[in-house]
């Protein structure tokens, strides 16, 4: 499991807290550098008829914009930069994690949980800001017989409170399992040597392709779920 090991590159401390610059920090910072650099480069010419890179940049913009418009509606476009940042950050760290000898930031539950908790807190705040105490009606679905209400409200409340956990564990488990699998089969390739190593190597090539899909898909799912939660906060049960 040493591929998930946190290595302190520059040990740092702030008010008694350990804030060492680790390999995880390195890949987070790398994402923060690479994403704006890519867009700076891609949108450099601001061409009316976009080239390849500019098309990718515009495609990613419209992909997230359309996702928000489809799920939340125009009211969700206020939060577009935030959702876009979530998607690009997760996508980039997932993809960077697939490079050999790299580190996958999202294979640590604390990171995905922190992201999910941020989403949960921000969206709950948006809900109360938009609807005031009326946001609590989210837990009281309309059209439910009143004798069922106590059970339903409790279930709704639990499912709401559990959101950050399901939200974060999904991303974490997928990224970790995928990378562990890659590691295990890479170990087989070395272990079986030149004669027997080909079979796991072929599998590994296919599996790496699958992991690329998973890396994108999990970033996408995390973002879609964020949009769905945001829809609750912006529109409540109107939709």
């Amino acid at each position, binding site marked *: 499991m040493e591929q*998930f090991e*946190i290595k302190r590159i520059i040990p740092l401390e702030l008010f008694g807290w350990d804030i060492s610059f680790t390999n995880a920090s390195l890949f987070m910072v790398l994402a923060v550098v690479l*994403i704006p650099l890519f867009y700076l480069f891609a*949108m450099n010419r601001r061409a009316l008829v976009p080239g390849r890179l500019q098309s990718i940049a515009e495609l990613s*913009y419209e992909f997230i914009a359309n996702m928000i418009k489809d799920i939340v509606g125009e009211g969700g476009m206020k939060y577009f930069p935030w959702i876009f940042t979530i998607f690009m950050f997760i996508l980039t760290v997932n993809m960077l994690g697939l490079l050999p000898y790299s580190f996958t930031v999202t294979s640590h*539950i604390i990171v995905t949980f922190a992201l999910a908790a941020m989403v949960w807190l921000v969206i709950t705040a948006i809900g109360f800001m938009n609807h005031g105490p009326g946001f609590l009606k989210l837990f009281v679905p309309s059209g439910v017989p009143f004798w069922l209400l106590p059970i339903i409200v409790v279930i709704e409340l639990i499912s709401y409170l559990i959101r950050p956990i399901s939200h974060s564990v999904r991303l974490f488990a997928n990224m970790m*399992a995928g990378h562990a*699998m890659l590691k295990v089969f890479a170990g087989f390739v070395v272990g079986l040597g030149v004669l027997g190593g080909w079979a796991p190597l072929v599998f590994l090539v296919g599996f790496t392709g699958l992991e690329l899909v998973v890396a994108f898909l999990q970033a996408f799912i995390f973002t879609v779920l964020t949009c769905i939660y945001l829809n609750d906060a912006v529109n409540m049960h109107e939709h």
Partner: protein
Amino acid sequence: MIAAVSALVVAAAAAAHGEGSSGLPQLNPANFAPQLFWLAVSFVILYLILSRSTLPRIGEVLEERRDRVQRDLDAAERFKGETDSALAAYEKALADARQKASSMAKDVRDRLAADTEAERNRVESELAAKISEAEARIAATKSKALASVDDIAAETATAVVGKLLGEDVSPAEVKNALQ
């Protein structure tokens, strides 16, 4: 996924056994603080860069393109309108010209018909005049001829009588005898 997770569990157990470490590095609380700190820092910085600079730039380009396409569409619409009105004007001009041509043709036809009619009338009256003149001349000739018949008869009679009688007879006598 289930296969992946079970493989993961096996691998995790093996790792825990083999290296003698305290299980998954993910569950080591000592690693939480630095990760949370750097996650917060990098996410906030990324959010600020994207929301302040990158996304508005892309939005601007997309907006510009949408405006441009809209402008082009509007221009095309305008040109189409102009073409339509030009076509209508052309068709109107064509219809006018056709009408004018037909009225001109009618005029010419009428005038020619009138001319022909006048010419015919003139020729007819001329012919009538000639005919009447000819008739008058014939009548005159006829009456003159008729008038000459007496003289011829008298001459002939004179000649016949002279031959018969063997002596000259004066025409006046013959004339008298004939009347």
